[in-house]
Every structure is written in structure tokens, then in C-alpha cells.
């Protein structure tokens, strides 16, 4: 516990990078050496190994996605759920209804803005602290690491209640400390979003910090020493040596943060009491939930889900393109 072990991967990673896929569906052409096939022909073995995963994913991920799309083009409310009335096909009417609703656009805008703010803050805090970790001795490093792991380990729901309590207008220490009297943080739209953002950053920066720190540690010290011997400045070392080597890691944590922050549910639901006063703090996820389970408009809820799915799919495709441009082997 006294020390964080260095990542074990780097050497193997270098070796691996030289290896190249020989499969028929290689993502990109290249002139790298093909590697010899050492073992007996694969046959059905890989599919046997994949069977459980494909079964679970097919039944609990692919099928529900299909169902989501299906429900979003049906008339599906309480009457249909209980079997009182037959389901009828509505085509894109649900989407028309959704897109002509001002609240939907407002929620979409809020979701994007909120997620962007969360991602930027999380990355800034996480990266800054990762660099800080490399500059301090063991004890402060351990302290920060432990605190961060604590925040990371805290379940979203307990984190939400604890932060609410910290900022409670009557009994919370924060208002007391800042001399804000009984100012309510959840009353105003933006201050409520800010409060949720603080909690989200608190519980998600540790992932970024630990990953980036592990990445920095994985950079071979000879490389840094060589750069220093060549007279490179601190800034130069960071810009020309560390940053390029960390790029894959930065991409991963950014994409991961986008995905997580775009689908924040628990924090908004608990901290703003299901979406804030008059729904001022709704994000797409909570909005879909409220439509479906609070007002039984399952079709509209599903349509919102489809919109979310498409947005995240776009992010994923962008990520894949980035990976390919970097020439990563899948």
C-alpha cells in the first residue's frame, strides 16, 4: 500500500505495436511485417470462446436496442402495456411530437452543455493532479492517491446525498464557511447544475488522474533522460516527448468521460429531486425516465433513448476514426 507499482505493460506494448493483424478484415493497409501463425488452425475454437459473450450481449444489449427502436415507432402507453388496447404503428409521429416540443430542445442543449462542462473540468483536474503526482514524494502522493480512490469508490448515490448535505442551506458546512446564510443551491438552475457538476467531477477525476499518472510512469525513464541530456527544457520534454506518448491514453480518458458524463442519471435524479424545479435541471436520461416511468409515455421515452444512442454512436465513430488515423491495431 505504501507505493503504487509501475505499470507492467510498456515493454510488451512496444513489442506488440510491431505486430500486425493478418485477418481478412484489417483496418488499414500497411507494410509492416506479418507475423507467423504459430499454432494449429483456429477452426471453431474462437467462436466457442466467444459464445457466452455473444449470447449475453445479443440477448441483453442488441435485442433491447432493437426493442427500443421498435417501441419508439409504436403507440405504447399504459393502455398497451396492460393489454387493454392493441399496439399500433405510429411511424415517426413520436419523433415529430418530440422534436416539436420546446422542452426537448432545451433538455438536449442542457445535456450537451452540462456534459461538456463536466468533461472539461474532469480532464483538467485529473491531468493537472496526475502531473502533480509525479512531482511529489511518496507521502503526499499516497495521501492524494488514497483520497482520490475514496472519491472514486463512493457510489454515485451516496456521493449525491453527501454533497447535498455539504451544501445544505440549513445544516451544511459549506454555506457556513462561505457565509452564504441559507442560500439554496438547488433553487437556481445554474447553481443546481454547478452543484451536480462539482459532485460529478469529484467522483470522476480519479479515473483520469490514475490512468494518466500510470501512463506517465510507463514512459521509460531512459527516454526522459535522453531528452534531458540533449538539453530539452521541461516544457519541451512535456510537449515533444510526454504528450505524444500519452496521446492514446488521453484519447481514451476523454472518450470515456464524454460517455459517462453524457449519461449522468443518479446525480441529477437525486440531487435535484428528479430534474429540478419545473424540470429546469433535466438531462436526456432523466427526461426519458420521467416520460416513460412517471407518465407512462413509453414511446416518447424510447424515442429520447434513440436520440441519445445516436449521439453517443457519433462520438464512438469519431473515436474509431481517430484510432485508425493513429494506426492503432485493433
Amino acid at each position, binding site marked *: 500500500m505504501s507505493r503504487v*507499482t509501475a*505499470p507492467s505493460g510498456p515493454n510488451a506494448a512496444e513489442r506488440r505495436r510491431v505486430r500486425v493483424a493478418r485477418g481478412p478484415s484489417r483496418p488499414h493497409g500497411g507494410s509492416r511485417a506479418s507475423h507467423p501463425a504459430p499454432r494449429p488452425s483456429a477452426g471453431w475454437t474462437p467462436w466457442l470462446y466467444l459464445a457466452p459473450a*455473444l449470447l449475453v450481449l445479443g440477448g441483453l444489449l442488441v*435485442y433491447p436496442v432493437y426493442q427500443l427502436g421498435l417501441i419508439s415507432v409504436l403507440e405504447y402507453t399504459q393502455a398497451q402495456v396492460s393489454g387493454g388496447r392493441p399496439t399500433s404503428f405510429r411511424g415517426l409521429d413520436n419523433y415529430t411530437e418530440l422534436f416539436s416540443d420546446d422542452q426537448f430542445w432545451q433538455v438536449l442543449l442542457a445535456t450537451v452543455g452540462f456534459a461538456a462542462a463536466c468533461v472539461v473540468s474532469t480532464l483538467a483536474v485529473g491531468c493537472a493532479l496526475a502531473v502533480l503526482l509525479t512531482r511529489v514524494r511518496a507521502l503526499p502522493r499516497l495521501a492524494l492517491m488514497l483520497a482520490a480512490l475514496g472519491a472514486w469508490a463512493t*457510489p454515485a448515490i451516496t456521493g449525491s446525498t453527501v454533497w447535498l448535505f455539504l451544501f445544505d442551506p440549513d445544516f451544511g458546512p459549506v454555506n457556513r464557511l462561505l457565509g452564504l446564510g441559507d442560500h439554496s443551491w438547488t433553487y437556481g438552475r445554474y447553481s443546481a447544475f454547478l452543484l451536480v457538476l462539482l459532485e460529478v467531477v469529484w467522483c470522476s477525476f480519479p479515473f483520469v488522474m490514475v490512468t494518466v499518472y500510470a501512463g506517465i510512469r510507463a514512459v521509460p525513464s531512459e527516454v526522459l533522460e535522453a531528452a534531458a541530456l540533449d538539453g530539452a527544457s521541461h516544457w519541451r520534454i512535456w510537449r515533444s516527448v510526454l504528450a505524444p506518448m500519452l496521446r492514446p491514453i488521453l484519447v481514451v480518458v476523454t472518450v470515456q468521460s464524454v460517455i459517462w458524463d453524457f449519461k449522468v442519471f443518479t446525480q441529477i435524479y437525486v440531487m435535484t429531486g428528479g430534474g429540478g424545479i419545473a424540470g429546469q435541471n433535466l438531462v436526456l436520461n432523466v427526461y426519458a425516465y420521467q416520460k416513460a416511468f412517471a407518465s407512462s409515455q413509453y414511446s416518447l421515452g424510447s424515442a429520447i433513448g434513440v436520440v441519445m444512442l445516436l449521439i453517443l454512436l457519433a462520438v464512438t465513430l469519431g473515436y474509431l476514426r481517430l484510432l485508425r488515423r493513429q494506426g492503432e491495431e485493433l
Partner: protein
Amino acid sequence: MSLVRDVVRRPWRLAAEATALLVAAVVAFPLYWMVLSAVKPAGEIESTDPRPWTSSPSLDSFRRVFGQQEFGRYFVNSLVVAVSVVIASALIAFLAATAVTRFRFRFRTTLLIMFLVAQMVPVEALTIPLFFLMRDVGQLNTLGALILPHIAFSLPFAIWMLRGFVRAVPESLEEAAYLDGASRARFLWQILLPLVLPGLVATSVFSFISAWNDFLFAKSFIISDTSQSTLPLALLVFYKPDEPDWGGVMAASTVMTIPVLVFFVLVQRRLVSGLGGAVKD
């Protein structure tokens, strides 16, 4: 990093260390306040003059929490869900990761891209179809309704992360095993599995957390049979919007956080090396 440390001059290092300690204190403060509020006597919690210490700690709030009907049961339920998800998804992901790293076959790249895409699917958006699916297969109001979807949702990320670990095992080892007459199964379970165990541990952190923390599924799928509830819902019993029992909420939060903390402390070394190893690829 020793070099960087040498280059950084002393006052800067002290400033950096002071900053690190300060940040650590700020980050740890909410957790400290949670535990503190859980052991404060009722009068001190709901006081307009909150103090960062207590002179008369009491276990009243914990008594209230454990006195709540079936709280122990909720705890066990949460544990069953999380442990089942961790074990099942680790094994399934291990097999799948082996398939996509140790074999070259048709549709391999397509599958990998699909795993990556699957990782992005917002779990929450699927609550509605999953609700009907669970109803149709008779899993509504059972722990299965929580376990099954979480296995599915933690798989893609687990496979993606485990790839790096499986690949790191030298191919020569595999050849040697076959030359010595080991079967595929023997190689898989007795040689490969122990070698990628650190990766499995790092991966299981994510599946454990997502299952243990789950709030949405528990709220949506366990609707009429409260004996199948999990901790998040038990916690909300104390959190009524108008008249929250803060002592109870904080005590329940503490109880809910401790298992995850323990789990984290147990695996933290492997977690850091695991993330470094996997992400580096």
C-alpha cells in the same frame, strides 16, 4: 521519474507537496463529513452551527439504519448482485478476450469494433425495453433483473481492457505449452488465466462498481417486492425531500460506501498497473 524530481528545484517541490496535501484534504472532506455526520448525535447534525468534530459520538443513526426493516437483507442482496456480476463477467470476458487476441478469424475486427460500440450504449436508454424484457421472462422483482443486464453492460469494457493483458502473455509460452502436450483447455485455465489475473482484478473494479452502485435498474425493475431491493433504495428511505433524516442518510451512505472502499484498497495496486498496462496498448 527520478530525473524530473532532480530537476525540479526544492521550493517548487515543497509547494507541489503542499498543494497535493491540500487537494487530498479537500477531496477526502466529503467522505470525512459523511462518517462524522453518521456518528454525530441527532442534535448536532441538525444544528445551524455545524462543527467539524463531535465530542459525543453516538451510534444512534446506525441503529436506526439497521433497525429499518430488512436492511441487512438489502445489504446481502447488493452483495449478491455485485459478486455475481463480477465473477460472471470476468469469466465471460476472459474467454472472449482470449478469442479476439489469440486467434485470427473472420469478422474479428468487426467484432472488436462492435464491442467498442457496445461500450458506448447508454445503459439508461435501454431501461424501457429491458423492463419489458424482464417482465416477459419473469425476472421482474428478482435479483436476476439486476444481475443479467449488468453482466451485459460490463462485458464490452472488460473485454476491451483484458485484451492488453492477454496479448502481453508471450506467444512462445503458448507454443511451449502445446509442445509439452497441453490441451487448449489446460493452457486456457491453468496457464493463461493465472497470468492475466491482475487484469481481471482491474477490470472487476469497474463491474463491481457499476453493479453495486446501480440505482436506476433497482428503482425500475424491483417495483413491488421490496425483499429484493438493494441498498440504494434503502438509503432513499431516509432521504425524503422535505424532511430528510440526515443522520440516517449519512449512516446508510457510510455502510454502503465501506465495502467498495475495502474492495478498492485491496486491489488498488493492481488497478494502477492494470490501467497503465491496458490503456497503453
